């Protein structure tokens, strides 16, 4: 089988597993979407409830529901949200940009800050600042993300009202494209920093270890012997190789970022997929939740492929050989 084909098959198999597993998992939760809608209504008659269950096909056995669902997905039909009675794809496309902006901003912040801190402490492992960096990043890593978010909210949105409390834009409206972009950026700072706080520690430790590794290598000694400035040595020679584990990690962390986004979006009222996923669980809105999980899984897989490609960019020696090894491991 050609590598691309096998890759595609494992991709599809994995997605199917995601769909089936999640479908069954959410069925295990007590209650169903109708109980939630009736709850919001403040009660309803038996007839109304029965009619709604029949309309959603919830009166059929779970296996039949699953089969129907998979059949629909194969034709690209993700169905209607039980809660809003609106196509799930519409709901998701409405929310997707917000999550992408948030996740990308956090990756950017955590990789940049983490790497810089890592390099710094690799060069001065016993400096006061290095210890401070370690303490700070460990705190960020250990604290529950919603707590970090709340603290930042209290500090920078309430005590010192520098940043907005919630949402992605000012609902009162802004004039013009530039103002709108500034408004989004202003709203983005706290949630992005919160989400990044978990990963800064990770990347700084990783970059530090990997830089220490690389800095001891022969070719670095050669570079120094050639009389290159320390700067050139670090950023020109060492960093390229030192970054490989960091890039790997970014690819692997994609799934966790999505999980982190659920909490961060809820704390900051950020209108993304994470919050929609969380609310869909509470509403037992099966179609919406399943579609979000489906697309998240896809996003993670795509991120992994991009990681592989990035490898090859950073280090031409890594190519098919490495991929084969990784393929054998998974």
């Amino acid at each position: 089988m050609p590598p691309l084909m096998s890759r595609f098959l494992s991709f599809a198999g994995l997605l199917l597993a995601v769909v089936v597993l999640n479908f069954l998992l959410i069925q295990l939760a007590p209650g169903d979407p109708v109980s939630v809608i009736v709850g919001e209504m403040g009660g309803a008659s038996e007839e109304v409830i029965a009619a709604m269950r029949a309309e959603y096909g919830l009166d059929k056995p779970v296996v039949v529901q699953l089969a129907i669902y998979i059949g629909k997905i194969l034709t690209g039909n993700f169905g209607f949200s039980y809660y809003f009675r609106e196509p799930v794809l519409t709901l998701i496309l409405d929310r997707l940009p917000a999550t992408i902006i948030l996740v990308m901003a956090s990756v950017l912040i955590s990789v940049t800050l983490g790497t810089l801190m890592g390099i710094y402490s690799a060069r001065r492992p016993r400096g006061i600042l290095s210890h401070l960096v370690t303490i700070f990043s460990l705190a960020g890593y250990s604290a529950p993300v919603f707590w970090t978010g709340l603290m930042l909210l209290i500090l920078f949105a309430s005590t010192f009202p520098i940043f907005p409390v919630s949402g992605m834009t000012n609902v009162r409206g802004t004039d013009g494209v530039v103002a709108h972009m500034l408004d989004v950026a202003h709203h983005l700072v706290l949630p992005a920093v919160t989400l990044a706080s978990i990963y800064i520690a990770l990347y700084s430790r990783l970059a530090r270890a990997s830089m220490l590794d690389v800095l001891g290598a022969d070719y670095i000694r050669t570079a120094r012997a050639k009389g290159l400035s320390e700067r050139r040595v670090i950023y020109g020679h060492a960093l390229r190789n030192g970054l490989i584990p960091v890039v790997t990690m970014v690819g692997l962390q994609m799934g966790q970022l999505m999980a982190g986004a659920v909490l961060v979006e809820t704390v900051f009222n950020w209108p993304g997929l994470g919050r929609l996923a969380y609310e869909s669980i509470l509403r037992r809105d099966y179609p919406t939740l399943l579609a979000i999980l489906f697309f998240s899984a896809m996003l993670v897989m795509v991120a992994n492929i991009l990681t592989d490609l990035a490898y090859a960019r950073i280090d031409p020696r890594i190519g098919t050989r490495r991929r084969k090894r990784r393929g054998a491991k998974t």
Partner: protein
Amino acid sequence: MKFLRSTALAALLGAAAVGASAEETLIVGTVNTPSNLNGAIQSGIATAMVSTQIFASPLRYDANWNPQPYLAESWETSEDGLTVTLHLVEGATFHDGTPVTAEDVAFSIETVKENHPFTTMLAPVTSVDTPDDRTVVIHLSHPHPALLLAMSPVFLPVLPEHIYGEGPIRENPANLAPIGSGPFKFVEYTKGEVIRLEKNEDFFLEGYPKLDKVIFQIFSDEPNLTLAMERGDVDYAPFLSDVRTIQRLDKAEGVSITTEGGDGIGPINWLAFNTKRAPYDDKRVRQAIGYAINKDFYLNRLLGGYAHDQTGPIINSSPLSTDDVNHYDFDLAKAEELLDEAGLVPDADGTRFTMVVDYSPGSVDTGRNFVEYLRSQLRQIGIDVEARPSPDFPTWAQRVGNWDFDVTQDAVFNWGDPVIGVNRTYMSDNIRKGVIWSNTQQYSNPKVDELLTAAATETDPAKRAALYAEFQKIVVEDAPVIFLSDLPYTEAYKDGLEGLPTTIWGPAAPWDQMHWAE
């Protein structure tokens, strides 16, 4: 600075600096995400708050339970109580410019009867005639005093038939982008985020509404909303019920709170027993628990003094409520005595039995904190309380709906007339497994059934009140439910906001009077 109306100044400062404040905008903060905006097919405050701005209705109510003209300028009920005639105002139009006709009203009554979850509201309606464009004649199978309340904005939005008459109504896209004849027009709804409405320039009430824009911002939780309100990002936050939120906003700079209005909604917070499960099948056990609760502590300490006492099945602020019921004044000795009588003697370590308490998730004050209080309180009379939290609403609803509980805290709404929101809890023909907010206590008393059935069709107000008074007395005595308080529904608003909706429907009624002080 915020509400500069002076155009000269605005011109000086440049439009960008003043932004939207040159027009009258209201930012509403809420934690409710309405699943749709059409109150004809969806009840509950999340939908009602928006639906009543977009759709007008035949009648509206004042703060003293009196019906007022709205789309109907006058109405009369026949001698025998079997027909109600509505005379519509002239010149009312829907937001798409088409006139509001008697056919639209008839269509709306039929739609609500078919689709609204509160089936008792319009059940007696047999047919609706429209002799001309401005006359609607409603025929009833028996007298139905609750009908006029059912004509309120919260229950009977008048829908344009040419929009909602096409295909199955539940699937109509106009449920998420409604067209009505109310004070505000729908602009957009970004699901779970923002709902935008704008002034209906052709509203049939001359000079109203006062606001140009109403923007609902949906928050993920009350703490987040509280912060936004404290900072002045939000102008108005209706239906707050979390005591800590209310306390904080009560103290906040430039923010006021009010509990005025909303008596029609009548949210009663109670402790309900599974009366088919021992030992709660014994009236004396239920009464004992009633005597063991110190109402004064509960209302003033636990709920911070924001909730009102509630003594029976009909909200105390309703004209149909009676004070002539047992108040279960705090009395531990009496509670012990009743438990002894019921044969529940303490064992060696003083325990009579263990009671598992469920509570509806969502409110810390009336839920978890109350159960903790109950634990320490009932310990004194030899009852061990075991709390059983539910992670979310469907979990709790599944347990209680299927009678899988001992005792649960819950809040159930009156919705104006007992026929709409009270009967369901006590009528024995509404004991339906799997249906939350039916008679989940499985309480059954033929006398109560008889009284409620008679009161539902009694057109003489004094006689009707007497029937309900007797019903209240019996239910409080039987104690299938221990009545605790109302829910402390509170509105927080930015200073300078006037004309707040303080009628019996509170914020679930048109906001055409609301405006910013000059």
